[in-house]
Each structure stands twice: as structure tokens, then as C-alpha cells.
């Protein structure tokens, strides 16, 4: 006799045990320590912090270990923790001009004040697997320290009035996307917030599409810089600013061509990318997508996916996307049953239709076959009600 499946609770408990065992692997091998992950997988840690929207290397490392290296799962773990944290206040805007750069390159000028600083980069490695155990490296010191305040390349163009000027302080107070829902149209500050915690793979694909003719935006890497920036808060009760620490950031400013229009002279325009930790690929992708999303503001024709803000912003978040794609493995048998019944009725109708002469009324076609679990009677074509109200709405609006 059939017995309805029971024991979900037990099955879950067993599954959790198996997961814990699989995560740990061979217990003869020492468990990873968080400091090993922090020190030796720092780019992974940076990505988890970025997309997890929480600057905490220790927790990001913990999440990576708990997620067995599944970055999206680690990001999700960090987000779910972050959401429970009380909010004490907001920092002042970070001043990336005062970044203590460890890397800073520009694709636009051969030499720039402060120089091209390669810093730690995979760019010039030869991608050969290194089978030797890595031995400690002696780092040679530069003849002179880097200047403490490296000017931004785009400010040099700004002096010539060849690049669009964005007045400091002209932005309205941004909304906090982690507390308020995204609504459309979204302003640039909101879009950048969304992109900054967006999935790197998604942004990379979107950015790539803009280079292949889907929203051609003629980009030049004006400047990419990575280094440490001070974080400053100004508590209301104190009335003065205090520095609470520093974080690593990667910033990318793209320079894009613009032919002018709407009374604006021909000039370069900007695309901006910023992310926590070392994340050059992410920051560059973000800058390209940011520029593509400015199409309306710059009166450019909008036809490509990367220019469509609803499309980009609604699908950039890996926690949302991963959850919804994977929810399909949940039981759907109630809905599937509903579809099955409908389809059987339609199939029976179709079969009957093939056998009956065309003069037969659809009323007779609709008899469900003997196998149909449930039946629904079809009727002839219905009367369509009219859409209503647009005039009324316009009237209310004015």
C-alpha cells in the first residue's frame, strides 16, 4: 500500500551530517585555518567581502571555509549575517584621491605624474603552472617611496576641460540599497551601489558585450588604482570627524568618447567602478557597465542589454539569481499536476480534432479522453473587454 512520504526532518538531519563530512574531507589532512585563507587566498576573500557587502576579512575567510570554496555560497553566508548587524551610522564619502596606492596604471598616457605603478599583479605572469613549492620571496625595496598623494589622471584632463565635469557634492544623498528596495528609474548613485555588489561574472559578461558592439562606448582605461583609503566618521554627538581605520579599495575610471549634443560640447565622458579589496576585473567591468547605463542621461540610443537598467540591475545580484534559479529543485508537484491535467485535456482535444470533420463544433472536441485526470470544458471564442483608463490617468496626473 502507498504511504505518503514522511520523515523530512530526519532526511534533513542526515543530509547535514553528510555535508559536514564532505566539507571537512580527509580528517588526516589538517583543517584550513582562517589566517591561511586570509593570507593565501586574499583575492577570494576580497570577492566575498565585495559581493557580500561587508568588509571583514576574517568573516569572509570563515564563510569561504564553511562554503567549501563555493564563492557564491560564501557571499550568501556573509550577506545573511550582515543583515542582522545593527547600523551605527554612515561614514563620510571615501576620498580615493588620498589613496595610498600600491598599484596604479593608466592606459591613456605613456607617463603620468606619480608614474605607472604595477604593484602586485598577475598581468605579467606567464600562466605556467608552478609545480615547485613556493619559497619565500625577497622583495627589493624601491629607491624612493611612492608619493603619498598620487594625482588622478582624469583630474589632469579635467584641467583642460576635455572631460565632463562632475561637481563634488552635486549628488543627492544616495539611498541605501540594503535597506530600501530598488525602484525604476534608478539614479546613478543607486545603480553604482547595485553594480558594486553585483556578481563579477555577470558584470564581466555585460561589460564584454559593450565592447562587442552592444552599446559601443569607446573606452580607455583612464586610471586604475588600488590601495588603502581611510574611513572617516563624524558622529553627531561629537561634531568632528574621526578616522576609524582604513580599507583596501580598487577604483577604475574609464574615459569614453562622446560626440556632444544637447548643448554639450564634444568631450570625454566617465565610467566609474569601485570595489572593496583587490578586484580589478570587477572594477573595470563595473566602469564599462556604468557608462553603458548612462545612455539616457547622455541622449544616446539605447538598444543593448547593458544599457537597459532594469535588465542589468534586476539580474546582477548573485544571491537573488542563485536562489531563484535553484528554487526550481523545490517541489512543484501541485502546479505540475495542474499543468498535467490541462495538457491532457488539450492533447485529447487535439487528437479528437484530427479525427473529426472540420464542421464539428469545438464544444464536442473538448471531451477529455479516458486518461484525463480532470476535465475542463472548452467554449467558443469569448468576448474581449476593452482596456480602460489611460485618459483618466493622464487627467489625474496633470
Amino acid at each position, binding site marked *: 500500500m502507498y504511504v505518503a512520504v514522511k520523515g523530512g526532518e530526519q532526511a534533513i538531519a542526515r543530509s547535514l551530517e553528510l555535508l559536514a563530512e564532505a566539507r571537512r574531507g580527509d580528517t588526516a589532512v589538517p583543517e584550513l585555518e582562517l589566517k591561511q585563507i586570509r593570507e593565501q587566498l586574499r583575492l577570494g576573500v576580497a570577492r566575498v567581502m565585495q559581493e557580500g557587502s561587508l568588509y571583514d576579512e576574517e568573516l569572509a575567510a570563515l564563510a569561504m571555509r564553511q562554503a567549501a570554496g563555493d564563492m557564491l555560497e560564501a557571499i550568501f553566508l556573509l550577506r545573511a549575517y550582515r543583515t542582522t548587524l545593527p547600523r551605527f551610522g554612515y561614514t563620510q564619502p571615501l576620498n580615493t584621491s588620498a589613496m595610498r596606492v600600491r598599484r596604479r596604471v593608466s592606459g591613456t598616457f605613456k607617463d603620468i605624474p606619480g608614474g605607472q605603478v604595477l604593484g602586485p599583479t598577475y598581468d605579467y605572469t606567464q600562466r605556467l603552472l608552478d609545480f615547485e613549492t613556493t619559497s619565500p620571496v625577497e622583495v627589493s625595496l624601491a629607491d624612493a617611496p611612492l608619493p603619498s598623494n598620487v594625482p588622478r589622471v582624469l583630474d589632469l584632463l579635467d584641467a583642460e576641460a576635455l572631460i565632463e565635469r562632475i561637481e563634488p557634492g552635486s549628488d543627492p544623498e544616495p539611498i541605501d540599497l540594503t*535597506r530600501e528596495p530598488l525602484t525604476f528609474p534608478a539614479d546613478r548613485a543607486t545603480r553604482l551601489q547595485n553594480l558594486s555588489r553585483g556578481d563579477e561574472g555577470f558584470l564581466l559578461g555585460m561589460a564584454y558585450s559593450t565592447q562587442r558592439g552592444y552599446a559601443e562606448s569607446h573606452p580607455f582605461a583612464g586610471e586604475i588604482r588600488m590601495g588603502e583609503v581611510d574611513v572617516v566618521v563624524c558622529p553627531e554627538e561629537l561634531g568632528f570627524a574621526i578616522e576609524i581605520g582604513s580599507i583596501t579599495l580598487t577604483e577604475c575610471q574609464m574615459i569614453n568618447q562622446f560626440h556632444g549634443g544637447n548643448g554639450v560640447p564634444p568631450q570625454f565622458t566617465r565610467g566609474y567602478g569601485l570595489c572593496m579589496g583587490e578586484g580589478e576585473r570587477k572594477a573595470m567591468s563595473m566602469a564599462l557597465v556604468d557608462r553603458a547605463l548612462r545612455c539616457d542621461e547622455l541622449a544616446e540610443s539605447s538598444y543593448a542589454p547593458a544599457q537597459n537598467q532594469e535588465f542589468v540591475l534586476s539580474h546582477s545580484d548573485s544571491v537573488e539569481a542563485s536562489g531563484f534559479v535553484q528554487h526550481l529543485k523545490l517541489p512543484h508537484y501541485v502546479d505540475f499536476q495542474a499543468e498535467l491535467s490541462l495538457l491532457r485535456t488539450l492533447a485529447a482535444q487535439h487528437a479528437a480534432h484530427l479525427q473529426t470533420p472540420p464542421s464539428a463544433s469545438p464544444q464536442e472536441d473538448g471531451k477529455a479522453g479516458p486518461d484525463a485526470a480532470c476535465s475542463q470544458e472548452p467554449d467558443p471564442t469569448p468576448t474581449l473587454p476593452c482596456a480602460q483608463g489611460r485618459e483618466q*490617468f493622464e487627467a*489625474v*496626473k496633470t
Partner: protein
Amino acid sequence: MMLSAFANPVFDSQRNFRELLQAMARPAAPRELPVLPPSPAPIAPAAMAILLTLCDATTSVWLQQPQPTAVDHLRFHAGLKLAERPEDADFALITDPTSMPPLDAFARGDLRYPDRSASVIVQVAGFGASHGAGKFSGPGIRDVETLAIEGLPHGFWQQRAELASQLPLGVDLYFVAAHQVVGLPRTTRWLEG
């Protein structure tokens, strides 16, 4: 000395919220608010219970009579922002209905976002079922609900009926008296007085 707020903020606001939810879902039917906190004049404890349950630093509240002790109390316990003008308020508190601003002074939302509209708490004299009772119908009301709300200004119901012609725009009302609350969402129709 500053009065205290909810003795147990987590559970007191949860219990009050459940009654407020039912009050909004079943309009024109008085419900008991289970936990009334101390409240400085002119704010009635029932109105204070609603404010502490629903408002915080992210909501702006307009007080019809912003007495300094009441303002300090709300700032201290709820951290809320006071709105200068009725139209800027998420919540408004009417402590003297006879001199209240017209209902269309409050935000009614816009057609894309009708939820961006005010919730107005009105301290009234009391609720009755017989003398001067109005009849109400609409979502949440099975057939017809009969209720007298005492102490409202002359012409209040006509004003509200005019507002109803703008649905789904509108304001949502909470009337309080003693320990009772009556919800009147924008969709409730006033049939007769």
C-alpha cells in the same frame, strides 16, 4: 523626568502590531490595544502605543500639537524625525480633532506608489454603536459595520467621502480612544451618518 516607553519593546510592539493589523484588516470594529505605555500630554497612551510600535528614525511624524515634553519623549524613545508640514509626514497625530487640518492636507501617494501616503492617528472621545452611528462597508467588512466615532469635526465624513473618489490614493486612519483602536483604511466606504 522622562517617562518610560514599552517595558518589553520586542513583545509589546509585536502584540500591539497584531491588533493594529487586525484593526486595519477589519475596519470600523474597535479592538483593544494590549499594551499601553506611559505618555506625556497631549498624546494619549493608545496613540503613543501606535507610534512606538511603528515609528523610528526612518519615519517622519507630524504632531498637531508638538508640546516640548511630548516631542522630547518621542525623540528619545523612537528617535523619529518630526515633519514640519502635514504633507511631509508618514504618520500624523491629531490630538485635537476639532481643529485638525483637512484630510487632503496629508500625502495621498501617487498612482504608481499609492503606499507613499500618510497614516493618520486621531485621538477621539470614544466609540459607540447607537447614537449618531455611521454605517461602513468595504474590504474587511463582511456586510455592514455600524459605529459612532465621537468627537470628530463637522464635515469630516464629507471630506473623507471626497477623498475616496481618488482611490487608490488616500490616507489611512487610526482612531484611538482609551485603550481601543479603530482602523479605517482608504477603501472603507462611509455609507451614511
